């Protein structure tokens, strides 16, 4: 080593405390007498500290991306769309990497797949009740809480190893985020939402399958272990077919003792609890109960839970089938009222940048029952007990406006619009309120006693059957539509003429869809499933692939040339099962006796090969096959469209 380098080493040894006492004394003596030497030491110290800091900064950046991915799993359609769009690509691609199954390694380019290669797995069995052709799988977990710990054994070589999230995001080949998000976002199953008081708990039936969820009070905890109080949002969604599973990031594979199994689902449900953006957890030794309506009764099926981080499944319990769930009243919404509305002129020149409304029961001052902050889409207080309330508006943390008496009626929604634009009148700030179905005369009389000098105008009342199905759309120069039965076009036309007469800012309440109660369409319920945490649960049978064949696809598409050598996200849907098998790479596996469909996600587009097209290729042995792809991106507006395309 050169002397200069030895010199650096000596400084490093000093800085890390690795010099002997004698060496240190000598070193410090020189340091104290030579200012240049001292400067050099300080520079080296600062540089090495900066290197470490740079490492830390990079690591927290990377971790943030990972954290967003894990958080995204709890975010339903109630969260801001913008955020979802920005992170969706990351979520998707990482999911695909995790989902890759039956990965093939080691083929050379000249002989892509050897004819003599041994079949991937043993004889496959797809076992359903009443099936006469298949044999049962000899997988029987040892009862509840059987934990599968077998390691993943996919043989990734440096060349074919799935990229990390950071690598993918930094890759030049990545598709622009906007393009990707549009199609994939449309193919997500939206979350349903209900609210509950953390101490009271709730019991509800899921919208789609009418499965029953019993969430006891007092079981929720914050991430730091403290008890949760106040209102909590329960978000849930169900995955009942391959079209709903395909882009869900839920791996339909399981590995046990080195053997790979496919998962054939009789229904999956994802449940999360959220408060103020934080995902809550369930306290130790607590659980919620699920009586789950299964799509079919499968032999050797069990109740599984998925670990959010490792994406691995744990067998929780056996399935005990019974008669379907009896109906219970849906959310008891008739016992509540709803308050929705919007602040406008919030961003005015007097530096107002946030506003808040809270309701306090009349005669019970100090006990706030519900509050909402200003945001871009207005405020919604969905579950307010009927009664009279005092509403307090705060601007910038100061209580600025108080309205003494707002009546909340069961099964009705009030719409409030709060104009926070200040103007001076007799020393008081004036706000203008619009409200629904109040007794105009009596309210005006009462409001005369309120310092805020408000004026009120009657607005719209929404029936209970439509509650929770409205979107607040910002439209500063339009009035509320009085007649919801008019077509949108007619309403806009009327609106325009109304606006000319009255130049009032307002907002539109637009009906999205009717809240129709879906009757239970399933014949069997699994009772008493205990769920000790939030996440994804699956009633599922695990099976081995029957007559497996390895396929190296070559793609043809009339509009776009697709490079066959690059890794792609590919999905096989075997219609004999309720599942999706995901592959990230250049190859995939199918059951040659399956009723296969194929999907390819590439460059922000989704391409498909239907069952009959796939069948016509007659793939019965390992090899390279050419696939004629159809770009189906535009026709896929929802999972329902995908379901139709796949013929499920």
């Amino acid at each position: 080593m050169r002397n200069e380098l030895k010199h650096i080493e000596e400084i490093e040894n000093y800085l890390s405390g690795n010099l002997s006492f004698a060496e240190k004394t000598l070193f410090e003596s020189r340091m104290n007498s030579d200012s240049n030497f001292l400067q050099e030491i300080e520079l080296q110290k600062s540089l090495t500290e900066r290197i470490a800091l740079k490492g830390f900064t990079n690591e927290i950046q990377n971790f943030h991306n990972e954290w967003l991915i894990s958080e995204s799993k709890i975010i339903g359609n109630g969260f801001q769309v913008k955020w979802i769009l920005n992170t969706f690509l990351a979520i998707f691609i990482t999911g695909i990497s995790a989902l890759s199954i039956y990965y093939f390694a080691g083929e050379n380019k000249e002989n892509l797949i050897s004819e003599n290669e041994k079949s991937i797995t043993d004889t496959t069995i797809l076992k359903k009740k009443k099936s006469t052709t298949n044999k049962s799988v000899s997988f029987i977990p040892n009862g509840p809480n059987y934990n599968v710990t077998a390691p993943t054994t996919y043989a990734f070589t440096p060349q074919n190893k799935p990229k990390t999230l950071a690598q993918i995001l930094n890759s030049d080949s990545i598709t622009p985020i906007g393009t990707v998000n549009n199609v994939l976002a449309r193919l997500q199953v939206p979350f349903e939402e209900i609210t509950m008081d953390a101490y009271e708990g709730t019991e509800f039936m899921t919208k789609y399958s009418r499965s029953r969820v019993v969430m006891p009070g007092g079981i929720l905890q914050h991430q730091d272990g403290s008890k949760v109080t106040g209102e909590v949002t329960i978000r849930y969604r169900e995955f009942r077919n391959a079209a709903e599973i395909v882009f869900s990031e839920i791996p339909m594979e399981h590995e046990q003792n080195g053997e790979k199994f496919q998962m054939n689902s009789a229904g999956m449900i994802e449940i999360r609890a959220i408060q103020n953006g934080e995902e809550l957890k369930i306290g130790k030794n607590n659980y919620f109960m699920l009586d789950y309506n299964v799509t079919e009764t499968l032999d050797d099926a069990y109740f599984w839970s998925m670990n959010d981080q490792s994406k691995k499944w744990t067998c929780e319990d056996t399935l005990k089938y019974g008669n379907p769930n009896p109906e219970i009243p849906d959310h008891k919404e008739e016992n509540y009222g709803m308050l929705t509305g919007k602040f406008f002129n919030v961003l005015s020149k007097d530096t107002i940048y946030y506003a808040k409304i809270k309701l306090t029961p009349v005669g019970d001052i100090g006990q706030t029952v519900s509050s909402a902050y200003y945001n871009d889409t207005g405020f919604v207080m969905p579950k307010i007990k009927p009664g009279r309330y005092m509403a307090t508006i705060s601007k910038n943390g100061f209580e600025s406006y108080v309205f003494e008496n707002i009546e909340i009626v069961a099964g009705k929604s009030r719409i409030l619009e709060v104009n926070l634009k200040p103007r001076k009148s007799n020393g008081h700030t004036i706000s203008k309120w619009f409200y629904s179905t109040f007794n105009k005369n009596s309210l005006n009389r009462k409001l005369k006693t309120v310092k805020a000098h408000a004026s009120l105008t009657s607005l719209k009342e929404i029936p209970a059957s439509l509650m929770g199905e409205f979107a607040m759309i910002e439209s500063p120069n339009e009035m509320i539509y009085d007649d919801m039965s008019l077509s949108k076009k007619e309403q806009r036309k009327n609106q325009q003429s109304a606006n000319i007469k009255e130049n009032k800012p307002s907002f539109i309440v637009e009906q999205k869809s009717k809240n129709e109660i879906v009757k239970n369409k399933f014949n069997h319920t699994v009772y008493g499933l205990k769920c000790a945490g939030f996440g994804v649960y699956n009633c599922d049978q695990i099976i081995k692939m029957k007559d497996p064949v390895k396929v190296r696809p070559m793609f043809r598409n009339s509009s776009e040339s697709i490079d066959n050598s690059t890794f792609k996200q590919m999905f096989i849907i075997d219609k004999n099962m309720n599942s999706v098998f995901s592959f990230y790479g250049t190859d995939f596996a199918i059951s040659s006796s399956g009723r296969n469909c194929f999907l390819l996600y590439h460059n922000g587009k989704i391409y498909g090969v239907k069952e009959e097209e796939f069948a016509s290729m007659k793939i019965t042995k390992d090899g390279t096959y050419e696939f004629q792809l159809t770009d189906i991106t535009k026709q896929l507006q929802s999972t329902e469209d995908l379901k139709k395309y796949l013929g499920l």
Partner: protein
Amino acid sequence: MGNEQILIQLRSGKQKEAIAELYKIFPSIRHFIRTHGGNDDEAKDIFQEALIIFYKNAMKPEFTLSATPHTYLFSVSKYLWKDELKKKNKLVHFEVEKQEEVSQHEHTEEKFRWMDKILNSLGEKCTEILQLFYYKKQSMDEIAQQLGYKNVDTAKTQKYKCIERAKVMANEFNVKTINNEL
């Protein structure tokens, strides 16, 4: 996880475990910032700034925590956010405790930010070896094996060459800055 455990992890190259633990407070901080005039991006920036301050302190052997790391991060984040709002001429009303570390951090950032340019121009090979040693706290034996050096001495020589290069560039940068100021 105990306070000491987090400090040990940060000091011993197990930063990721520590970061995962510290990130548990992020939703609360984000909520606070959202409800005090900020958005998610701003919440992320503020929180990461607080993490960096925490990390820098954790690297000081004498640093100990009197409260939990989460409480510490929340206080620092609130302080940083109030400061940020002040810079934007936005009025805000929430109480914060004075955070000496924040002004110290701002001072050192100002003083040493120029070094980032130098470190960024060192090249991949140097960055890798320096990061593994000074950040991930790996031994030179491990690094030599991991990066495929012939032996430990070769790896060490490479590391010191990289430091030497950085020091030369830093001195050149300082000379240029002084000349420009003159």
